[in-house]
């Protein structure tokens, strides 16, 4: 075992002598420099391993031959080893990243860097208060100097502000330390008992703690830090933001036992405030590095509040929370700062240049996802446990604020991501980079990717099948160079295998949703065979989404469910993002989805524990969910299902996604919210909540149907039209589940299945049309029935099924629906549903007429039928639709049985006849009669006019004149203008205005707060002092 003090010794000796070595040659000095940094990392690695695996007893290192408190001692425990392992890791790789700069810079820069790294090690290990001060100053001074590695006015003035602030802060720290010595007669942390301090002693402790605390950049005493982040070279700033911050954070952790509880709590809240406000302020930020700066101070705030609020938590939890946040922040932030240095674009709007380097873009995304605490990265687990813990401790407000802050953070991070992925690079500039800069980033991302496996395996013992979505993503990514079709076939095989694996584990409700997710997904997947070329980054995401959906069904306990929920969110977001103009739409989708996920997380946190060896869908039936839990989770599911009020992500996301993806989203992903509602429902059936919350959910569903239908009526873009139609249809399902009656649940399942069939069908047909005509605007089409007859038939059958006209299965759903509603006693609701169902005729007719009927446009004269890969899945859907229409038993009976597990059946099935308490329906007979009555006039007509006279286009009765052009003859644009008049003031997009208002207000608020940062160094000092004074006053009161 190498004594960790050798890190200090070696660094100092080489530090002192490095400039001498440099006289011999830069190569020598560089070799020594990197050698020492590697040595540091190596020492910490073996210590970390030793403390973790062999022996957990910390090593106490005395100096000067005396034991503490007479001499200064250092400590090497697991926590120190943990922090230093990562700090030295980043320090080494940041140095590698800076290789080219260091090669040219003055030798003093290397010396400063080496001593900085030594100072960080000392700072973390030392147990002496005054020694902390010394090491703090070592770190600070070397940092001050290194800030000017790129010597320009910005870095100079930022460094100067930093020095002023740092000087004042450390003065107060020193003042506090000296008075602590005065009151306790000791300087060693392990020998000071502040419990015996009087009021004066508390002032000393206050100043000391604040000295460290302000170094952690709490709002608003942190303007200097932001300037430093913005102005400093990326390599150095990564060290400042990551290595220094981690060390100082650990100092805070060390002195925490000395801090009286009321002050500690106050600091915790101050950290929280910092997190929330810096995330808010980040929203307005355009400069990449400053953006990361806001994120950094936010993360530090979060870390502080995490460490403060989890002091009483069991070790397992606090390690996961604090360690998770810390590692996440360290690695992700360092990597992102390095990327800013590689990209060399100040404005985030210019980051489209990243598109020239796909690997870098992927690394960027990876790090950003990690920073956003999305799974599987460490921050995800930390956030999960943190929220649970806060709720358990009845600190609901804190939990909510943490989530609000996180949401804002995700907003600004992903706005950046979307810009990088989607913004066109107009200047066609290239990224100049080198391996010494890329490798550290890649390595970091690699480490970040490994940690989750450790967490899942050792902390949670989660079945690694829940990593399958990620593994699928990675595997497909690796084989990205093979042609698209082969990847598609491989994906299908994977789905098949996965389904085969899943099948024995499933029953009842699970099986039903598995059919929708996996079989439905597989069928729609066929349509993607039409894609040409390599088609990169597609199948991985697709598989990830479908597998995570499948995993939802076998998730045990809340965490596994939530994990897959987040996987699903991420993968679907990335799929959306692939669309050509999907920058804004996917962003809105992500924000709403994440907000929904957070609501879900809160909801789970409030819920009582479930048994961990049973699938959540089953174990949840045994517990009573508290009301707040139900409300929060329902809100989450409402967002996911695009219900009224939170539906605004739906149209854009659907419309801008790639066309086959839209089919997948509409057919499959839209059901996941329904699955969520079923989770709630099966619990609520056996344990009725105190307030009938489901009644209101039902109303939301009902209103979604009508408003979705009306919104669909006025769309010109057919995908938007269908998106709103989906919102409307999902509204039916939500309302049906909310009834919590047998018939209601059967209806919901029936509708879900039906929705998969007809929406998959229509969207695929539409995808074919768009593929051929290259437009989504319906009024630009027309008359395509002659060119694309099969697509027309698909749409025709689809819309008959949607509208509920007999004899197709759509009527079955309508029959079940009204029976269920009237039986339940929701009369007015069923009236509204009827209205919605009538309105749906308007948009359905508009869709089919504007696209397929009427006048063919000249530019579409040579359009061909859709490619076979689009047609094939359509045929499968048509066959399925016809089968369950003719033999409704095939579906009603199993559904009846599934729901029968939870609630007694209220319908009688006799042959093909279904009888409810209100009426009856014989699907088979209806089909036969309809066929019959259809044949009668058809035969009659054939008999009377066997031969018709074929006429050309425009040969129509048009007041004896020929119309000018198909554009003017084809009545399609703004088809229901008169209905707009009818609605009058009711037709205004109020909800959209509301959300726009929310966005604007949030941004204005962020802008307001950041006015604190005037850029004047003097003002920053004033902030610091005022901050102390105000905190002191709050504490005194």
């Amino acid at each position, binding site marked *: 075992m190498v004594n960790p003090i050798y890190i200090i010794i070696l660094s100092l000796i080489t530090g002192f002598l490095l400039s001498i070595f440099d006289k011999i040659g830069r190569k020598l000095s560089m070799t020594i420099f990197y050698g020492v940094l590697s040595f540091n990392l190596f020492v910490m690695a073996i210590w970390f391993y030793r403390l973790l695996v062999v022996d957990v007893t910390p090593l106490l290192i005395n100096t000067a031959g005396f034991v503490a408190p007479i001499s200064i001692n250092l400590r090497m425990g697991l926590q120190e080893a943990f922090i230093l392992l990562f700090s030295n890791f980043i320090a080494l790789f940041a140095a590698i990243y800076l290789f080219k700069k260091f090669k040219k810079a003055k030798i003093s820069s290397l010396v400063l860097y080496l001593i900085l790294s030594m100072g960080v090690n000392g700072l973390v290990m030392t147990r002496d208060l*005054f020694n902390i*001060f*010394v090491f703090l*100053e070592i770190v*600070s*001074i070397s940092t*001050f*100097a290194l800030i*000017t590695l790129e*010597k*320009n*006015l*910005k870095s*100079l*003035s*930022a*460094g*100067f*502000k930093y*020095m*002023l602030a740092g*000087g*004042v802060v450390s*003065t107060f720290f*020193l*003042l506090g330390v*000296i*008075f602590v*010595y*005065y009151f306790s007669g000791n*300087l060693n942390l392990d020998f000071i008992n502040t419990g015996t301090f009087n009021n004066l002693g508390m002032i000393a402790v206050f100043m000391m703690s604040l000295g460290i605390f302000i170094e952690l950049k709490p709002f608003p005493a942190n*303007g200097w830090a*932001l*300037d430093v982040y*913005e*102005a400093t070279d990326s390599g150095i700033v990564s060290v400042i933001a990551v290595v220094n911050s981690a060390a100082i954070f650990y100092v805070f952790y060390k002195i925490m036992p000395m801090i009286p509880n009321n002050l500690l709590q106050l600091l915790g809240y101050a950290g929280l405030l910092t997190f929330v406000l810096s995330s808010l302020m980040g929203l*307005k*930020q355009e400069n990449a590095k400053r953006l990361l700066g806001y994120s950094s101070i936010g993360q530090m705030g979060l870390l502080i509040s995490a460490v403060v609020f989890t002091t009483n938590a069991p070790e397992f939890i606090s390690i996961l929370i604090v360690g998770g946040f810390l590692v996440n922040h360290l690695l992700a932030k360092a990597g992102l700062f390095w990327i800013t240095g590689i990209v060399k674009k100040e404005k985030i709007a210019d980051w489209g240049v990243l598109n020239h380097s796909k690997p870098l873009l992927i690394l960027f995304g990876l790090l950003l996802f990690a920073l956003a605490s999305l799974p599987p990265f460490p921050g995800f687990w930390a956030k999960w446990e943190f929220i649970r813990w806060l709720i358990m401790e009845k600190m609901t407000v804190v939990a909510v604020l943490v989530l609000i802050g996180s949401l804002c953070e995700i907003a600004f991070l992903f706005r950046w991501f979307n810009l990088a992925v989607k913004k066109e690079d107009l200047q066609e500039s290239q990224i100049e980079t080198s391996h010494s800069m890329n490798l550290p980033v890649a390595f970091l991302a690699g480490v970040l990717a490994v940690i989750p496996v450790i967490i899942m395996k050792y902390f949670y013992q989660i079945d690694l099948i829940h990593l399958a979505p990620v593994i699928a993503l990675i595997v497909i990514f690796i084989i990205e160079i093979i042609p698209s079709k082969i990847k598609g076939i491989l994906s299908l095989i994977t789905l098949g295998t996965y389904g085969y694996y899943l099948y024995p584990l499933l029953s009842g409700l699970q099986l039903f949703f598995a059919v929708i997710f996996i079989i439905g997904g597989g069928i729609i997947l066929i349509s993607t065979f039409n894609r040409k070329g390599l088609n990169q980054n597609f199948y991985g995401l697709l598989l990830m989404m479908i597998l995570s959906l499948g995993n939802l069904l076998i998730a045990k306990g809340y965490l596994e469910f939530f994990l897959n929920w987040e996987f699903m969110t991420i993968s679907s977001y990335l799929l959306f993002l692939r669309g050509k103009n999907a920058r804004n739409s996917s962003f809105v989708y992500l924000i709403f989805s994440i907000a929904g996920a957070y609501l879900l997380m809160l909801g789970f946190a409030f819920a009582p524990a479930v048994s961990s060896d049973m699938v959540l869908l089953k174990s949840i039936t045994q517990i009573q969910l508290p009301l707040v839990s139900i409300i929060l989770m329902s809100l989450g599911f409402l967002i996911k299902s695009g219900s009224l009020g939170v539906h605004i992500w739906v149209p854009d996301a659907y419309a801008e996604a790639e066309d086959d993806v839209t089919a997948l989203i509409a057919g499959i992903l839209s059901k996941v919210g329904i699955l969520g509602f079923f989770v709630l429902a099966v619990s609520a059936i056996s344990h009725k909540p105190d307030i009938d919350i489901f009644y209101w959910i039902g109303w939301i569903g009902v209103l979604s149907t009508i408003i979705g239908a009306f919104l669909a009526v006025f769309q010109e873009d057919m995908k938007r039209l269908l998106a709103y139609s989906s919102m409307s249809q999902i509204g039916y399902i939500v309302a049906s589940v909310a009834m919590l009656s047998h018939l209601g649940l059967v209806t919901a399942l029936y509708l879900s299945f039906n929705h998969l069939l007809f929406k998959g069908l229509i969207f695929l047909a539409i995808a074919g049309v768009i593929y051929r005509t290259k437009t989504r605007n319906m009024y630009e089409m027309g008359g395509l029935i002659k060119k694309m007859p099969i697509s027309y038939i698909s749409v025709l059958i689809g819309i008959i099924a949607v509208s509920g006209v007999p004899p197709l299965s759509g009527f079955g759903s309508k029959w079940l629906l009204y029976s269920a509603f009237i039986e339940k006693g929701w009369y007015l609701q069923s009236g509204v549903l009827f209205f919605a169902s009538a309105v749906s005729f308007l948009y359905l007719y508009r869709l089919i007429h504007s696209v397929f009927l009427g006048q063919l446009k000249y530019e579409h004269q040579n359009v061909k039928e859709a490619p076979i890969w689009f047609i094939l899945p359509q045929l499968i859907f048509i066959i399925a639709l016809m089968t369950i229409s003719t033999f409704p038993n095939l579906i009603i009976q199993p559904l009846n049985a599934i729901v029968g597990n939870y609630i007694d059946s209220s319908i009688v099935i006799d042959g093909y006849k279904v009888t409810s308490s209100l009426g009856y329906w014989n699907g088979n007979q209806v089909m036969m009669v309809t066929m019959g009555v259809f044949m009668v006039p058809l035969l009659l007509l054939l008999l009377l006019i066997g031969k018709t006279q074929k006429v050309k286009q425009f040969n129509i009765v048009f007041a004896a004149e020929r119309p000018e052009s198909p554009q003017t003859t084809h009545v399609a644009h703004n088809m229901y203008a008169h209905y707009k008049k009818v609605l009058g003031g009711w037709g205004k997009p109020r909800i959209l205005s509301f959300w726009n208002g929310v966005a604007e207000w949030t941004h204005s608020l962020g802008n307001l707060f*950041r*006015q604190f*940062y*005037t*850029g*004047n*160094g*003097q003002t920053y*000092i*004033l902030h610091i*002092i005022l901050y102390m004074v105000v905190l002191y006053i709050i504490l005194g009161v």
Partner: protein
Amino acid sequence: MIFSLILGFILLILGISMMLTRNNLIKIVIGFSIMDTGIHLIIVSIGYIRNRTAPIIDAAVNIKDATSQVVDPIPSALVLTAIVIGLAVTAVMLSFIVEMYKKTKSLSIDDYQELKW
């Protein structure tokens, strides 16, 4: 000797006030130095014990009874470190100012706020 403590605090406040109100960079650094000096005075005063001598065991102190005759040596040791550190920081600050002055020919702190928000 409590006077030195009071003086120390006065210097501290004075230094801070100067940092907060002076516009000139050099003067701000001077304020910082004054503040630093104040702290040093405070540190030294802390270790003082009435009617005792410096902690140097020479002829003036009885070796056997040294502990009851000398003042606390620790603050004296600490202040040395603090002074050196203060010096180092001041030196770096001044060289920053030199460089900044070279860029803009201005010593007013208000001229260095292009980074903000």
